[in-house]
Structures are given as C-alpha cells and as structure tokens.
C-alpha cells in the first residue's frame, strides 16, 4: 500500500515538473542527505527541481494535501544542516530558477530568482560597476538564500545584514498560495522597497525555509568606488582588539571591519589544535574602505592613523601588521574561490566544518572568546575565531570556524560537542546564533521568553497549518 502511495506522489510530482525533474532514485536522494556540517545525514524521499512559480505552487499544493514535508534548497552550503530533511519528504531544488529578472542600474536594485548564484550575480553587476555584500562562501551558492537567512558579507560593516538589503519579495506559501511583500505587493512591477509598508518580508527572513518558498527577491545593490585601502593591524590579545574595533567602528568608514585569531588567519586552519608561536600576535584585523578619490582615501586613512595612535597611547599591544597575503585576498576579493572552496578552513582537517556563528555585542567578545578558547583547546580544536562589526558598531558577529575530519565519527562528534558547548556560553552571554542547526535551535528555545515561543508557533501555524515546510528546524 505504502509503495503505491509513493508511486502516485512521484507520478504527480512528475506531472508538475516533467518526468526528468522529479525522482525517488536513491543515488539522487543520497547526494542531498548530508552537507559540510556535523549534522547527521538524512535522506529525502523525493527530489524535485522546479523552474517556474506555477510549478512551485503545484508542488506545495500537493505536499500540503498529502502532508509531505518540503525542504527548499538552492546550494545547501549553509553550514548548519538546514537543507538536510529532518523528516524526509520533498527536497525542492531551486537551482534552475536562476534568472536575473531585472537590474535597475539607476535605482540600484536587482530582482532575482532563488537559484541565482553569487558568481552569476557578481559577474552581471560588475558590468555596471555594481556590487553586493558577498559572503566569504562558495561563489556557486545563492544570493537569495543568503539574504533570507540573514547572511552577511563584505559590505555588512556599512550596510548591515544582507536581509536588510531586501527590497521586495514574492513567496509561495506552504498552502500553494502566492503572496507578496514590499512595493511589488502594491504595484506588480515595483520592486524598490519593503518600506514603508508593514514588514511582511519578516515572515520569511531568518525562518530557515520553514514558512514559504521565496520565488522572487528584490535586492539593493551598490556602486563600486575605485580606490581600495585595507587597514591592517595586530594585537596580542582580544581585549586590545576589541578596544581598537570599537574605536575605529565608531567612524563608520569601513565596508568590512573584521578581526581573526591567529588560527583563522592560517591557510588552512591548523587541525588538530596547534599552539600559536609565542612571538606572534594573537589577533589580526583588516578594515576595508573603498573611496571615490585619492583624497577621500587619504581622509579615511588619516582617521585610521589617528585611531591607531590613540590605541597605542592607551598602552595596548596594537601594531601595524601585514595581513597574510592569501588570507587577505580570500577576504577582500569577493566572491572568493579561495574561501568558497573551503581551502582555508578544512583543507587540513578533511571534509567537515561547522561553526558556532553568532551575533554577539562587541563588549561581550572578550569574555566569550576566552571561554571558547578553553573549550576548543580542551577538545584539541583550534580556536579559529572571527569577530566583525556590522552597520558601524551596531551588530557584533562572533564565530568560531571549526574544521574536523568527517571520515571519523568520533572526531565529528568531538567537534559537535565542543561547538554546542561554545554556543551555550555565548547564548548565556546574550549572543544569538545565526543559521542555527537543530542542536542550536533547542538551546535557543530553552532560554527563550515564553511569549516569543508562543508567537513563533502561532505565526508558523498560520502560515503552515500542516507543518510541512522544513519541519523540525525551529526546534519547536
């Protein structure tokens, strides 16, 4: 009986997307059962590739009727097992919805389908001297997924999260209903802004694909000023780096203001843990600034020199530093194949990476980092930590990139345990993890205000009455 139902569903899926675009073949399902992270592999029951909005609607109507889970997928590089199906169902691969529908070079926004990769968008934008806030991830991963997952990139120091760059969206709800948020909801062809309407786009951002399938997305894009200057310094400890980042961050002159621990500045991250040489600073920082003229660059440089002097006068360990060449290229030439290929993260460890990736206010970086360091070293893992300011000093990002040897289940579990332990420390200090795997979601919910959980459940129920969208990921 069961087999019959499965066949019937597959037939119906094929009638929606065409025979070659839906399958239940195990080898195809297997390739979607794992990702880079420590999250345990799980198989979807079907894999379906959609190319049109109507097809997505058809799939959702079928899934909702049959109460089959649906997991939206574009490249699966989220490092949190977010596209690994917790409860089987349909893996909805959207990579072929890959059209750039509009590039408004005057009003500086693009309208894209979910399968548009960073590499494709960057190539197209560059033709108009435009850019976006590219993450330091694989160029083949997709921009829309990054934006709706509160992703961050090389311009986040200036403009904030990539989800703040969203100007409009079209979404297929779990019921198959087509909805819109932002200006495109009022005027079919207007994709320029989500404001001043109620921000309904918030129903689909940071929800880990559990509330609907985004089928079109408007994104703000930005001009590329021609003059790049990278400010590079080092300190002997995190406290001195925090002082500097606060100071320089106040001026809001950097597109990206990031500091990394010695272990993360290595290409690749040492695995297992290797002590840092005593005579080397522990923290390196780069601040990228783009200017329109040499004069503007000099003015920015003057600010930086003053900050550097101020910090030296405070008696901190700050010094001008040469940032390691390959690591610097990897983080300033974006999208980057160096980082995208995971070379600088896991080349030595082999196969696996996960992270406690969090938003943590700058004044909490030092105490959390010092505890993380202890935990990670205890697990024989390098404390390869990154801290970044977004939107001036508003958001602080704190993240440890943890590579591990995926061939060994013991080493994978060791990494998982260390990461979850780090996460708890950060949550207790007021940090919030981003793109959280289920293990993290559980920890978040343990600490959550009952009203938050109640609202979360109510909204989820409203949008997804049968709990079919990426079920299980919110840990509720």
């Amino acid at each position, binding site marked *: 009986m069961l087999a019959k139902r499965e066949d019937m569903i597959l037939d119906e899926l094929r009638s929606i997307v065409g025979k*070659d*675009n839906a*399958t239940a*073949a*195990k*080898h*195809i399902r*297997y*390739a*979607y059962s*794992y*990702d*880079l992270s420590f999250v345990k592999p799980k198989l979807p029951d079907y*894999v379906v*590739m959609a190319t049109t909005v109507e097809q997505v609607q058809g799939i959702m109507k079928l899934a909702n009727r049959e109460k089959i889970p649906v997991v939206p997928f574009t*490249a*699966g*590089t989220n490092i949190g097992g977010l596209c690994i199906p917790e409860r089987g169902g349909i893996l909805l*691969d959207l*990579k*072929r919805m890959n059209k750039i529908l509009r590039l408004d070079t005057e009003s500086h926004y693009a309208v894209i389908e979910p399968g548009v*990769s960073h*590499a*494709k968008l*960057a*190539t197209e934008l*560059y*033709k108009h001297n435009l850019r976006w806030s590219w993450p330091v991830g*694989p*160029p*083949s*991963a997709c921009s829309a997924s990054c934006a709706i997952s509160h992703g961050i990139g090389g311009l986040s120091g200036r403009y904030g999260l990539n989800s703040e760059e969203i100007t409009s969206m079209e979404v297929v709800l779990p019921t198959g209903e087509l909805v819109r948020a932002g200006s495109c909801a009022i005027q079919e062809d207007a994709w320029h802004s989500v404001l001043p309407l109620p921000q309904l786009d918030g129903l689909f951002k940071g929800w880990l694909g559990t509330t609907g399938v985004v089928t079109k997305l408007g994104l703000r894009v930005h001009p590329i000023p021609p003059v790049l200057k990278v400010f590079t310094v080092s300190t002997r400890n995190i406290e001195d780096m925090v002082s500097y980042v606060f100071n320089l961050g106040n001026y809001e002159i950097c597109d990206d203001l990031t500091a990394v621990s010695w272990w993360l500045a290595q290409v690749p991250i040492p695995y297992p843990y290797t002590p840092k040489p005593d005579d080397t600073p522990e923290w390196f920082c780069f601040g990228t600034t783009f200017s329109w003229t040499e004069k503007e660059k000099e003015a920015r440089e003057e600010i930086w020199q003053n900050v550097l002097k101020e910090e030296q006068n405070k008696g901190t360990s700050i010094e001008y530093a040469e940032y390691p060449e390959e690591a610097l290229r990897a983080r300033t*030439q*974006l*999208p*980057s*194949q*160096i980082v*995208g*290929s*995971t*070379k600088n993260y*896991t*080349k*030595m460890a*082999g*196969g*696996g*990476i996960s992270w406690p990736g969090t938003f943590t206010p700058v004044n909490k970086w030092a105490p959390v980092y010092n505890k993380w360091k202890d935990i990670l070293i205890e697990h024989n893992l390098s404390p390869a930590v990154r801290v970044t300011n977004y939107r001036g000093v508003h958001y602080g990002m704190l993240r440890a990139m943890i590579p591990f*040897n*995926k*061939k060994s289940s013991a080493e994978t579990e060791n990494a998982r345990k260390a990461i979850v332990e780090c996460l708890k420390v950060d949550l207790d200090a007021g940090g919030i993890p981003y793109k959280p795997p289920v293990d993290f979601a559980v920890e978040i919910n343990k600490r959550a205000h009952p009203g938050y959980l109640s609202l979360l459940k109510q909204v989820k129920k409203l949008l997804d009455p049968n709990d079919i969208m990426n079920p299980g990921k919110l840990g509720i």
Partner: protein
Amino acid sequence: MKWEISTLEELEDKIWRCTACGNCKTAYKFGPPPAFGEICPAGVEFGFDGMMASKGKIAFARGILDGELEWTEDFLDAVYKCTVCGGCQNQCELDHKPFIPEIIEAMRRKAVAEGAGPMPSQKKISQSLSAYNNPYQGPRRVRTDWTRPFKKAKKPIKNINKEPADILYYVGCTGAFNLPARGVPTATASIFQKLGLDFGILGENEICCGSTAMRIGDAEEFKRVAEANLEMFQRLHEEKGVNTIVTSCAGCYRAIKKDYILAADYDKIMNGIRVVHTVDLLNGLFQEGKLKFSGELPMKVTYHDPCHTGRHLNKFEIDEDGSKLWKGAYVGLNEEDCLYDVPRELLKAIPGIEFTEMERIRDNSYCCGGGGGVMTGYGDWAAKNASRRIEEGMATGAEHMVSICPFCHYNLNEGSKRIKSDMQLYDLVELLDQVIPEPE
C-alpha cells in the same frame, strides 16, 4: 607489467576530503572583471546535485563505499553520465583535487569488475577493442584508408615497421576510422611531408591507445593494449630509431602522457622517447623559423580547448612525505604541459585569421561533451552539449571554431549540424596545411 591503478577503496581517504562545498559546480574567477560560467556538462543537462560536478560524483563514491548505494540500472547510468572532462576538478582546492577524475573512473572500474558496467551501449567498445584493437569495429586494413591519396600522389608515408624513422606519427583510431575526422591525419601527414620530417606510421599494425577503455572503467582492456603499445614503442626506439612519438589526437596524447605512466616500468620503457602533440612539434619549428606560411586564410575563428590537451595535463604537486604541508596534501599545480598558448599562437600566426575568444576557455573550457565514453554511450546528449558549445562560439561573432582533437572535431560538428549552424569545427592542422607551402 605492473600497474598502479587505484581501486575505489584505495581512494577512500581522498573521497572523505570533499566538504560538499559545491565550488566545483560553476566556473568562476574573481578577475576583475569576474567571470562566471557553467562548467559541468552533466549538471547542465541533468541538474540534480548528484549528477553535477565532483560534488555529486563524490557523493556517489561515498554512497558505494558506505554500502548505501548499489548498482541499479539508474545508478549505473548516472555514474556514466559524465564526460570526465575535469571541469569540476579545476574549481576544487582540497587534497582530493588531483584524484577527482581517478575517483570517477575508479567507480566505473568497480562497476565493470562487479559485472555491472559499462553501459550496454558502451559494451561494444570493449568488445570491439578485443576483436579489432580499436573501438570502432573497424577491420585492420581500414586503418590506412586515409593514406590512399598520399600513395596516389606518389608521396607514400613510411611504414615504420619496415623503414626506420626519427618520428612515429601515432594516428589514433578516431582519425583513422571516423570518416569526418579523417581530415586530421591527412593534414598532419601532409604538413610533415611538406616540412620534410622523417616520420612513419604503424599502419595496419597500430592498435588503440586504450583511452576509451580506461575512461569507461575497463582497466583490463586498457592494460592489454597499453602494454602492447609500450612494448612496441620501446622496440621502435631500439630497432627503428624512433625518438619522438607525435600524435594529433588529444585522447591518445592524454593516454600516453597520463595513463601510461601508471605502468611501474614507464620511465624505463620510455627512456629516450619524447611524446608530443602535433601542434607542440609544429610550434617548436615555427619558433625556430622553420615553419613558414604563404597565402591567406581570411576567416574569423574561435578556439576550443580540448579537455585532454588542457587541464587533464595539469601536473599536481602532492606532498608525498609530509615535508611541506602534511602527508598527501595537494600543494599546487603546474600547467606547463597544458596546451593553452601553443595552439593559439599558431592559429593567430596564420595570415588572414581573425581570432576571438569564447568566455569559457583554457582551464575553464567547456567540454564538447564527447569524452568519458559519452559519445558512444549517450550520442544525443553529446551532440546536444556540443550544440551549446557551438552557440557559445557563435556568440563571439566567429564563423568557425578550431581545436586540436579529432573527438571534439567530430562531436562539435555534430553539434553544429544539430542546430543547423554554419559554424564548422576545423582541426588546427587542417588550417595550417592550407597555408604551409610545398617545399621549393
């Protein structure tokens, strides 16, 4: 003869180095300006992640090794739907990078060893190889059909079994048996004669290099022909004075350069013998001023880099003893053997030629779709993919496309016909032959 051809199990450690980052799914270079393009013919056609790039192929390999995937008809089909072009390999930066084509072929070897592979349509390759020593079911005597015009013109080509010569021109099965590709050996021999090179061919005694057998996982058939060839090369060197083996076939070139070195005695056997592609030999003569052109070829052309004369010839540095990075680490690559500049320089030197580049070139060239047994196994898909490449060529404004591989020659011309394009694929030697004058 002892061979070091890895099994899938022996490659397991490499297979686990893959992070599933998917970097291999598209070709991308930062530039500036940035350049992006689809790189995986299988991914473009079939779409699912398992079908796409090394991310997918390594998932299959993992599935086999952990016992999750068994040889079903569909799975076997998926393993063979790959041109082994190495486009994906070019994007990867991790320690298994040098082994990516090896991993794909090791899966196929396993399939063959376990009685599942190759695909039914490809079985005739193996059968033909053992019956005829070529993959085209061509009788031996047909191998020399292309030489008839030379005999007629009273310019016979030396039979190296009978007369000594400095150069062995190893023709390859495609040039000899595939009618539309016969222009390649004809032009090659014509040029060599005009240049007065001392060369000969094996004629009816030539046997397949084994490339196709290796690509489809038939290691036994590959070894049989490769051993016979290696022994023959050694004999020709010792008895007939052959110091150079030259071929115009990218597949043979790749096989002799990259697959034959898996023979434990390769260095000993090939000591004193140089293996070169025809365009490399001609370029050497051109640089020395010994190759001159007369007349003009007013033609706007673009150039297609065959996978087998390009990125397949990368030399990978691996830290074997752990002295540089760690044991088994991929350290870097050397492109000195890759024929990227040589054909372009020769092509641009032809008077009247207007040269234009496609977007996906050199190490990121988009495969014609014919390799890895795909032309035999999936002819329609091979031609469809070739049409995509032809369209890319047409978009440059070029009238014709040039390459240096009889496989690409056949497949791209099929692709062009399929979309009723006027664009023709010429082998570089076919153009060169038209502007290299007869000796005075």
